[in-house]
Each structure stands twice: as structure tokens, then as C-alpha cells.
């Protein structure tokens, strides 16, 4: 019975360093610089509609591309011999163990106007193309960085799909397309939902990818927040306000996703 006490230090830690800070985000978000209650900052959100829409739009594209890339890959992996699976999964995950900034930086060297890709295209007499500082580059960066977050949950639900279930569907008269639509996709739904959240959330809130690959003209929500907190337009209250909106938005997305996915999320993270 006493073992319940073992959680006490963590509960205190959690209260001070998780719950109180979140409370402070709301406190700052709903007050003005002098500490008086005000929703001025929240009502200024309308000014940033285009930034919000751009963030969401790019994150949606990145998420869809990740799903399209990861789904066949996860399925192929899950049907390999168990011994091979481990190695292949390791190979897929290996780049993700490189620091996020370095992975994004790698694409900078590739995409630059006098970067590697343009040099190679130049040999064949093409280009140079304007690739960096575009929205396409941002999406590419998101996909490259976050596609493992889509692969892992998909792979982990697909390994649970027994081959005999697929055979049963064939046995009962399904052709390949019907097996996919009626058995594999419904059974991998929890993985799809987890994958979507795990790619969408970091994509919609990033500020590094847009900074490094998007140039100054493609500001996202993350950039906006960072600018208020650490940047030139130092305004903690406005930064907190935008954070509240971002949080609520993500919370709603997750609530929608959880509707489809009642399986527990534990252990799904990696």
C-alpha cells in the first residue's frame, strides 16, 4: 500500500513543471503587459489568419504525403521474415537518429540555388531551379523529418495482422483490392490515426523547417510564436495567446482522431 507514495515526488514535479506552466500560458495569454485581464491578444488572431492557414495547409499536405509513402512501406516490412524485419526497421529508423537540425540542413545543401541538385541538373543543361525558400521545400523537409513517425505506428499495427486473416479474406472470395479495402485498411486504422497525429502535430507547429528551408517569406505559426517570445517583437502575452490557439486546435484534431482510435496509445510512441 505504501508503494503509492513512490509516485509522490513525480506528482509534485508534474504539478510544478507541467501543470503550472500550462496555467501560465493561459495566464499570460489572457492578460496584457501590465497583468490585467484582457482578450485583446486573442482577438488579434484575425490578423494572422493567412499564417494559420498556410501552416495547416502545408502540414496537411506533408501528412498526406507521409501516409502515402509510409503505408506500402510499413506493409512490405510487416510481411517480411521476422529476422529481416528487425534489420530493415533499423535501416528505416537510422536517419531519424541524426539530429533533426542536421537532417534539415542536409536538404539545404541539396536544394540551394547553387546546391547539389542544381549542379547536377546543370550538367544536363537544366536549371537552375528555385527550390529552396519555397513551400515545396518546407513540405519536403516535413516529410523527410517526420515520415518515420508515420511508419512506426503503421508498422506496429500491421505486424499484428495475422497472415491467416488475409488468407481468410481471400478464401472467402476477396481479390487483392478487396483484401486491402475490407481487411487491411480497417485493421490498420488505429495506426493510421496515430501516424496522422504524430506527423501533423510537429508539422503544424514547426519553426525550424520553415526558417531553414522556407526563407523569410513563408512564415508559419511556429515562427510567429518564436518571434514573440525570443525574437524581435518581444511580446510574451501575444506569444502565449497564439500558443493557446495552437494548443486548442491540436487538441481538437486529437479528439477527432481518438474517435476513430480507441486503442491505448501507450507504447506507440516509439
Amino acid at each position, binding site marked *: 500500500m505504501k508503494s503509492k507514495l513512490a509516485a509522490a515526488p513525480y506528482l509534485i514535479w508534474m504539478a510544478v513543471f507541467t501543470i503550472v506552466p500550462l496555467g501560465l500560458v493561459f495566464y499570460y495569454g489572457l492578460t496584457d503587459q501590465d497583468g490585467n485581464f484582457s482578450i485583446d491578444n486573442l482577438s488579434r488572431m484575425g490578423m494572422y489568419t493567412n499564417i494559420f492557414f498556410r501552416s495547416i495547409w502545408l502540414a496537411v499536405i506533408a501528412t498526406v504525403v507521409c501516409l502515402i509513402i509510409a503505408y506500402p512501406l510499413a506493409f512490405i516490412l510487416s510481411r517480411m521474415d521476422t529476422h529481416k524485419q528487425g534489420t530493415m526497421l533499423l535501416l528505416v529508423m537510422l536517419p531519424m537518429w541524426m539530429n533533426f537540425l542536421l537532417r534539415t540542413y542536409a536538404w539545404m545543401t541539396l536544394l540551394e540555388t547553387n546546391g547539389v541538385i542544381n549542379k547536377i541538373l546543370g550538367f544536363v543543361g537544366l536549371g537552375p531551379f528555385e527550390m529552396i525558400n519555397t513551400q515545396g521545400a518546407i513540405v519536403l523537409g516535413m516529410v523527410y523529418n517526420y515520415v518515420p513517425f508515420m511508419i512506426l505506428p503503421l508498422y506496429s499495427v500491421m505486424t499484428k495482422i495475422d497472415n491467416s*486473416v488475409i488468407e*481468410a479474406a481471400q478464401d472467402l472470395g476477396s481479390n487483392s483490392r478487396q483484401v486491402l479495402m475490407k481487411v487491411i485498411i*480497417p485493421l490498420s486504422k488505429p495506426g493510421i490515426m496515430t501516424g496522422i497525429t504524430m506527423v501533423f502535430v510537429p508539422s503544424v507547429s514547426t519553426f525550424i523547417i520553415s526558417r531553414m528551408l522556407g526563407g523569410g517569406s513563408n512564415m508559419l505559426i511556429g515562427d510567429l510564436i518564436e518571434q514573440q517570445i525570443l525574437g524581435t517583437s518581444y511580446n510574451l502575452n501575444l506569444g502565449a495567446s497564439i500558443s493557446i490557439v495552437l494548443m486548442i486546435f491540436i487538441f481538437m484534431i486529437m479528439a477527432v482522431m481518438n474517435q476513430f482510435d480507441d486503442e491505448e496509445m501507450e507504447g506507440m510512441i516509439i
Partner: protein
Amino acid sequence: MENNNGTIISLKDIVVEFDGERILKSINLDIKDKEFVTLLGPSGCGKTTTLRIIGGFLNADSGDVYFGGERINDVPPHKRNVNTVFQRYALFPHLNVYDNIAFGLKLKKMPANEIKTKVKEMLKLVNLEGYERRSITKLSGGQHQRVAIARALINQPKVLLLDEPLGALDLKLRKEMQVELKRIQQSLEITFIYVTHDQEEALTMSDTVVVMKDGNIMQVGTPVDIYNEPVNAFVADFIGESNIISGMMRRDFLVEFAGKEFECVDRGFDRNEIVDVVIRPEDIEIVPTIQGQLEGVVESVIFKGVHYEMVIDTLDFKWLVHSTKCEEVGTNVGMRVAPMDIHIMHKTTEE
């Protein structure tokens, strides 16, 4: 091949290899229509592989599969008029009982009301009326089993394949399901091909038993044939319990084993051929020592319900004996065997 004498499935020289290992070594088998056929053998004997060949989940490396006289080697599973009850059932966890059973019919685009009546019929057949809306995850093992059978049968296959379907059930439930499967098979008048390693299950349900070992078919016959006239020591040992002792055929109708000569009913062996002698434990009669053909000491006695199982040591062999009479451990007893209960078999040459 020709569709006379009621053969529905026929396997010709089927060979299957995995990683250079021969799983099936040229299997030939004809299965008659409307029969309950059991493929019986220890694990790794190739029985499930044979079933998967028939279901179309595996392609043979060589050999042909015929269905009603037509070669179906290249027909994919979803186009074969055969359905399978999988090991551990392979029910669709995302669908409820109704949708699992209706799966095949929905693919055929059958009208909804027709599907409904058919599913109802099936649920009645497998004694699961009223379970339509249940989630698969909330069913017991026996109920899973019934759903799997209904799901396969609703497509009205000519042949139903069952891959160790009762393996996961407890003993009592298994007995019930054995009776029920037999009832279903007889009422629907279709062919069942049943895979099991449980000899008792095979003997209870089958019309024909196919005994397999190491990718070969050892014997095909009715349960009674297989039990009473096993073709070799392996079959004798696998089907029921047996005493298998090495002996020598002196001449027709006379065999020597355990240091004595015995009259028997077998003939046609070489003179002095070394043979396997098989005697069922229930065919050994315990008699006073003077009347016995063999004499030994009772080493152990176990009460088995209907009979006692005793081990009787005759120095060169330990005999397994079933008797309704109990003898004290340590007493000297005599044993007799009737000539017709002594089964003589050629030694199986190991490959």
C-alpha cells in the same frame, strides 16, 4: 482426372520445398465427395501444407491439384470453391459476428435481405442464434470456432478445409464440437478435410483417415482399418497405444519374439525376416503364471477409469497392458495373446 467414382479433389505427385527442405515428398491422394477425411500426423508431417495446397495459399513446386476433374494449380484462393476454417480461426477483429459471417456474401454483392436470411440460417446451424451484434473480441473460444465455421460454410463450398480447428479448446468443449462438426458435415452433405494431430479426434469423426509422416502418406483407410490393420509400426504406434517388439518370421503363421515362438495369422514374409510385432495393450490377457505364454513382474499400475494400465516387465521388454482386473505391483503374472491379435509388419526402412 475423370470425375467418376465420386472423386472431388485429387492430388498428383505434389512436391513442396522450403529452403531446400522437402516438406511434401510426392503426395498422391484422392478425396471422395461428401466424405469426412482427416489428415493425421505428428507436427511437421506436412498435413497443414497439404491443406494449404488445396486451399490455394501455397503453390506446389511440382505436381497437380484437381478439383472435380479440373486442374486448379493456378486458380487463386478467392476463386476456388473451397473454404477454410483456419487454425486459431482468423476472424476479422474489426467486424462483429454478423459481418464476419456475411463477409463472403457481401463480396458476391448478394442483396442485403438475402444475406440476412442466410446468416440467420448459419447461426442456427452452429447454435449461435441471437449473437449477430456481438463483437468478436467478446466471444469465448468455442464461439469463435462456431463463427469461423459459419463464415466458411455460408459460401456453400463443395469442400470445407479445417486446420486443427479444435486445438485451442479444452477437452470437454472439444468433444462437444467433434460431435457437432460431424452433425454439420452430414446435414450439409459436403466434403470436410480435417487436419489434426489428435488420433482420437481422427478416429471419432472421420470416414477416411490419411496418416502422414515426414511428408509422405503412410496409410489411407477407414478408422477401423487403420486401427486394426496398421501397415507399419509407425501407424500402429501413432494410432492408439501399442507394444512394438522386434521379432523374426520363422515361417508362415509362426513368429518368434521375446524368446518364444507364437502362432499368428500372417503369411507371405521371407523366411527368417526380421519384422515388427505389434500387439495392442488391450489384447494381452493376464492369466496365472502357469497358463501364460509369457511371464513377467508387474512394475506399475495406473487406474485409468475404465481399465487399469499396467507395465509388465519380462526382462527383455516392458509390456503395456490394459486390463479391468488390478494386479499388485511386484507380483508375477502370465500373459496370453490370441494369434489374430498378433500383427506382423515389415520393418520400415528409414530414409
